[in-house]
Structure formats: structure tokens, C-alpha cells
């Protein structure tokens, strides 16, 4: 199986380095606590309490998504037929390269200069902006968080809150660096002022964009409708002002009916940010109609596969239920200290650790599924009940077959395995080892440093063994 085309060059192999950098960044740690624990986690709990049917809805959402996956080709065909009936176009792209080329073609045919963009993780996945810029176009992110990281040439650190890792001061600095036509001594210490500045800078781009590109949270087969979910309204300005609207999306996003989309929408904002609904849920069907005073003249949907047909046929199929709410990311103890950039590509946290090895290969990304304690919180909060720890473990199995972990760790595992399979060997050898450690410890209850204890003792003491193994003492009659 050839890898889907990667887009942004992955840095997953540097996870340890990226994690360390995040751990040493006190400001980031503060933002993580504030955003995740005090923010998203609390808000989700409060919002779940307001909907007693929440767990029931999750079961139905899981069943809906499973049903769709079992019938995916039929729903996509129907979606396409309805889009066409409404006067839109559907483009099927098997990989990132094709999708980029298709979008560029549409933009060039429209003689586009400025391309406004609503938030789209698929666009990040295929590294669309770089491609458009390389071909002389000016893509402008309109989601405030995406706009900020676009200016900074960074990847998003979270799929819902892409710039949460930045402080207000960093945002102010970024604006000072890039909005050079404005007075360089202006006071940008207030968040409201920053927002006003972003709003007026971007309003101009909205109004002059030739093409608007959005993602699509869901596609509705019944009516040939694509829909987006935003709080800012940027997606709406992106899709209603320019002459051409392109919805870039992926094949697993389709649902059968408007009611099915509604079911998922009862869960999405609630689980992601704790809102009843995001401010703007917008359903668009085709280009402007006769007599409409506004709306695009052309409407295109670019349907991306990029390896999803492989996922559907694989043991990782369940990840295709993901509705990109970010709850798993918000509740992951590992992400909660490493933040998103350590994951080295587009999708972080638990869902990212299941998806990324598929896109960039397990050789490059094997540390990601390993970087989990399997605490199970992700599965607990997932609105479509994806068994994330199981999927991560399956990646570990593939990684193991390819030699990961290697070196000393693999040797240690093999040695342990050998002993564990042979109790008659295990007992005496372990008795010796335990005795040795106990002797080293003496009266001390724990080691501050121990050769071979790896990084454990860097951050914490290692409790010493009590002395004697249970089996040995029990056999001697101790009770």
C-alpha cells in the first residue's frame, strides 16, 4: 500500500524532543491547564448535564456512522447526484496531490487572486495553502486562530482551537510584525483591540476574495448539502461573498438525511466546547439561485479519499466515525502536558495518533501510538464511541512487527517474555534480582538514582522492593 501524499513534512519521529520543549515551556503549561482542564473539560461536563439523553444519543451516533460506512458508496453517489441537481459540481480526488491540482485548476479558471479560507483540517492535511501560494495565489485564513498561525507559519496545535498555545502578547507581536501598514506604536495589550484589528484586516479580504474555500463538517446525501460549523461567521463570509465557493471535504463525512446531521449536531458543539450549538451552523446547497441577491455563482465540492478507502477496509475502520470534536484531545493526560506540536503533523492527541501513522507511515510515526498510558479517557468521552486505546494498540502491534521498540527496550521485553513464560526459571532469577536490589537499597525505601532505571529516577524516586518475593515467602510458609 503506498502512503497517501503527506503535504506538510512530518516531524513525528521527534516526538520526545517536541514533548520536552513543551514541558519546559511554563507559559504553554499554563495555557494547557486553562484551556483544557478549566475550559473544555468543565464546559463539556456542564453542557452534558443539560442534556439527559446524551449517552443515548452517543449510541445512536455510533450506529449511524457505522451504518453510513457500510453503505458509503451509495450515499456518496446520491450526494453527488443531488449536488448536481442543485447546479453544483463534485470532484473526486484520490489523494492530496490530485486534490491540490483540482482546487488550483478551479481557482485559475476563475482568474482568482485572493482566496479566502474557512477553517479546514483537510486543507492542512493536503497542505493546500503552500500549493496555492507557490502558484501565485494569495490564500487568507479567516478563522482567527488559523489566521494567526498562518502568519506565524505554524501548524495548528489543536483541531478546534488551533492557536490556543499562544499568549495574547505573542498574538500582538505577530500582528505588529505583519500588519505593517498600521502604526507600529499602537497599543495591542487588550484582546478586544486585537480582535478589532483582525476583524478589519480580514473584512477587506472577505470582500475582495475571488474564491472562498471552506471545509465541510457533514455532507447530506438527501439534499446534496454540505454544512459547516463555526462560531465566528468567517465560514459564512467565505462561502457567500466570493464568485466561487469550494467545499473541500473527505468521503466519510456524508450522512443520509438532514435529521441524521441534526443528531450529530446535538453532540458536536456540546462535546467540543460545551456549547448547545456553535453560533453558526450553515447548510449550503449548490450555487446562488435565480433572484438571490448574493451567493456564489459556482459551487464545487472536492471529495478527498487520501487513504480513507484503505482505512475502511482495515482494522482501523472505526476511526472513520470521528466527527472531529476534539474531546479526546481535550481529555488526554499526555496531550495535556505535551500540547499539539509534539505530535509532529496535522492531527494531535488520541485521534491524531490513530490517523497519523496511516498518512505518514508507521516508521515515521510509531512514537505516537506509543505515547499513551491507555488510561481510556478518550474512549470514555468520544461522542461516537471510537475504541481509541484498542486502535492505538493495533498500531503498536504493527510497529512491533517492524522492530519498534528496538534496542535495549526490545531486549528487555524479550528477556522478560522468556522468564514470564517459564515460571520455574522466573522464580529463582527474580528472587536473585529482587534480593540484589534490596541489598542495594539497604534501609532506604526508595532509590534517588538507579542505573538501568531509565528516565524514571530523573523525575521521581523509585520505591525499593520490600525484600523476598511473595512466592518464595509464601512457599516458606509465611501467611
Amino acid at each position, binding site marked *: 500500500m503506498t502512503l497517501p501524499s503527506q503535504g506538510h513534512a512530518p516531524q513525528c519521529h521527534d516526538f520526545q524532543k517536541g514533548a520536552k520543549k513543551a514541558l519546559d515551556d511554563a507559559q504553554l503549561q499554563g495555557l494547557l491547564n*486553562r*484551556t483544557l482542564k478549566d475550559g473544555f473539560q468543565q464546559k463539556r461536563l456542564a453542557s452534558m448535564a443539560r*442534556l*439527559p439523553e446524551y449517552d443515548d*444519543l452517543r449510541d445512536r451516533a455510533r450506529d*449511524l456512522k457505522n451504518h453510513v460506512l*457500510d*453503505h458509503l*458508496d*451509495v*450515499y456518496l453517489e*446520491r450526494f453527488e447526484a443531488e449536488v448536481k441537481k442543485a447546479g453544483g459540481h463534485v470532484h*473526486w480526488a*484520490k489523494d492530496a496531490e490530485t486534490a491540490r*491540482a483540482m482546487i488550483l485548476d478551479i481557482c485559475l479558471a476563475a482568474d482568482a487572486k485572493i482566496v479566502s479560507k474557512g477553517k479546514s483540517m483537510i486543507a492542512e492535511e493536503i497542505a493546500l495553502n503552500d500549493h496555492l501560494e507557490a502558484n501565485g495565489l494569495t490564500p487568507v485564513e479567516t*478563522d*482567527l*486562530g488559523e489566521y494567526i498561525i498562518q502568519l506565524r507559519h505554524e501548524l495548528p496545535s489543536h483541531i478546534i482551537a*488551533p492557536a490556543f498555545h499562544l*499568549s*495574547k502578547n505573542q498574538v500582538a507581536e505577530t500582528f505588529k510584525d505583519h500588519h505593517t501598514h498600521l502604526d507600529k506604536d499602537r497599543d495591542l495589550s487588550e*484582546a478586544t483591540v486585537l*480582535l478589532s484589528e483582525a*476583524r478589519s484586516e480580514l473584512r477587506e479580504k*472577505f470582500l475582495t476574495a475571488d474564491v472562498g474555500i471552506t471545509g465541510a463538517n457533514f455532507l447530506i*446525501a*438527501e*439534499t446534496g448539502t454540505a454544512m459547516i460549523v463555526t*462560531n*465566528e461567521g*468567517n465560514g*459564512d*463570509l467565505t*462561502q*457567500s*461573498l466570493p464568485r466561487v465557493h469550494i467545499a473541500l471535504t473527505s468521503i466519510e463525512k456524508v450522512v*443520509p438525511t*438532514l*435529521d*441524521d446531521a*441534526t*443528531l450529530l449536531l446535538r453532540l458536536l458543539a456540546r462535546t467540543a*466546547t460545551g456549547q*448547545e*450549538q*456553535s*453560533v453558526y*451552523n*450553515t*447548510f449550503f*446547497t*449548490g450555487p446562488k*439561485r435565480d*433572484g438571490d*441577491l*448574493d*451567493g456564489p455563482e459556482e459551487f464545487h465540492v472536492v*471529495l478527498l479519499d487520501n487513504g480513507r478507502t*484503505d482505512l475502511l*477496509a482495515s482494522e482501523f475502520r472505526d476511526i472513520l466515525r470521528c466527527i472531529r470534536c476534539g474531546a479526546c484531545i481535550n481529555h488526554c493526560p499526555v496531550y495535556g502536558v505535551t500540547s499539539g506540536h509534539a505530535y509532529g503533523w496535522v492531527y494531535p492527541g488520541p485521534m491524531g495518533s490513530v490517523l497519523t501513522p496511516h498518512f505518514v507511515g508507521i516508521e515515521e510515526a510509531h512514537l505516537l501510538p506509543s505515547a499513551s498510558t491507555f488510561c481510556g479517557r478518550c474512549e470514555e468521552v468520544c461522542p461516537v464511541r471510537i475504541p481509541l486505546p484498542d486502535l492505538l494498540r493495533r498500531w503498536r502491534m504493527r510497529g512491533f512487527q517492524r522492530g519498534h521498540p528496538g534496542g535495549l527496550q526490545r531486549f528487555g521485553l524479550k528477556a522478560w517474555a522468556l522468564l514470564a513464560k517459564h515460571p520455574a526459571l522466573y522464580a529463582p532469577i527474580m528472587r536473585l534480582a529482587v534480593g540484589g536490589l534490596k541489598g542495594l537499597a539497604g534501609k532506604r525505601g526508595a532509590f534517588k538514582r538507579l542505573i538501568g532505571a531509565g528516565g524514571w529516577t530523573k523525575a521521581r524516586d523509585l520505591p525499593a522492593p520490600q525484600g523476598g518475593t511473595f512466592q518464595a515467602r509464601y512457599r516458606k510458609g509465611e501467611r
Partner: protein
Amino acid sequence: MTDRPEIMSRLKATLDKIHNPTVRFSRADQRIHDARPALLPERGRSEGPGRTVLFVTEAKAAQAEVHQLAALDDVVQAVAGLLQEAGIDRLKIAPDETLQTLDWSGLDVAFGRGEGDDRAGLSLAYAGVAETGTLVMRSCPASPTTLNFLPDLHMVVLREEDLTANYEDVWAKLRAAAEPDQPVLPRTINWITGPSRTADIEQTLLLGAHGPRRLVILLIDAPET
């Protein structure tokens, strides 16, 4: 250039192992045909005066402002007051007959779509969903979408009789009103729940990201029967 055949054949190869294609097609087709709500939560089943109260409560919880007016005729005065308070002297109004027939003399108004320099806009909602205090806007010549997003102050007239308990009832209404051979949905349906917002700067909630900073709902009491 299209990869449709390749993508579809890969899907078919995988899915044929689960259901044969005829079964798969008819089940999907049937499901679309049977479109129905999965589960309507309790909060999505409000009725009567309780429905109105719920709508108002939820809308306010999402930072929308709600003014309850006795009749459509009271809209002009309410709007005039809001404009004055906000220090805005011009108003763009959706070219809907209901709004056009009101007496706007004394105010500087224009009818049409939203433009970049519109500071205030007035629209008429297609429906309001009590479950979450959500406005449903339907694009058409009388209701341009841009007017919902460009003005800083967005005022929306909503008739109490257009309140529904849940979103599904609005879909049913749209399906029932569809012309044969015409798409069921217009170019755009907006669900609007409160004014535009962002928390992208240090998680501080700020209103008026790109869309309106203020959303004012003018809820017109249902006529006495």
C-alpha cells in the same frame, strides 16, 4: 480529471463483502426516503407558552438580546430605539414584503443584501428553534444571507407562530414546502445561535469576531385567536 471510478471501485470491493450491492443500495435508498428524527430529547418537545419561554431563555443564554413585541407594527419603534442607542444612523433591511410594508419614514433605510459598510441590518427569520434558542434563516431573494453576517448589529424579526420545538420540525416544514423537481433546501440555511464570537485569544470570550457583535431578536407575539 476525476478519480471517481477508482474511489468507487475500492469502496465497492470492501463493501460488497458486507452487503451485496442490491441490498446495500435499497437499504440506503429506503433510509433516505424514510427520513426521520433519531431521538428527540425532552427539551426538543416543548409546546405552547412553555416553548416561547424556552426559546427566550436559551437565546439569552447564548448572548442574544430578546425583545418581545405585541405586534409587527411595534418593530419600527423598537428598531429606531436600538439604532439610536447604538449611535447608528443607517439601516439595511432584507427586501421581504412583511418588512417592506412597515412605515420606515423618519429612518434612513435601504433594502437589499449586506455590504461591507453596513453597520446595522434587519432580517426576518424563517423559524426559531426553542430547543436552543436558534434562529433559522432561509436564503431567497427576500432574505439575502450576507445581511446575516456583515452588519455589526443584526436585528431579526421572529414571529412566535414560527417557533418550533426542535430542528427536525423545520426540516419537515421545508420538505413539505418544496416544489417538485426543485431542491428541498435553498442555497443557504443558517442556524444562528447568538452573536458571532471567538475564544481564540487566550480563551477569552469575545463577541463580534467576523459576524455581528450584537444579535437582537424581536419576537412578535402570536396573534390572539
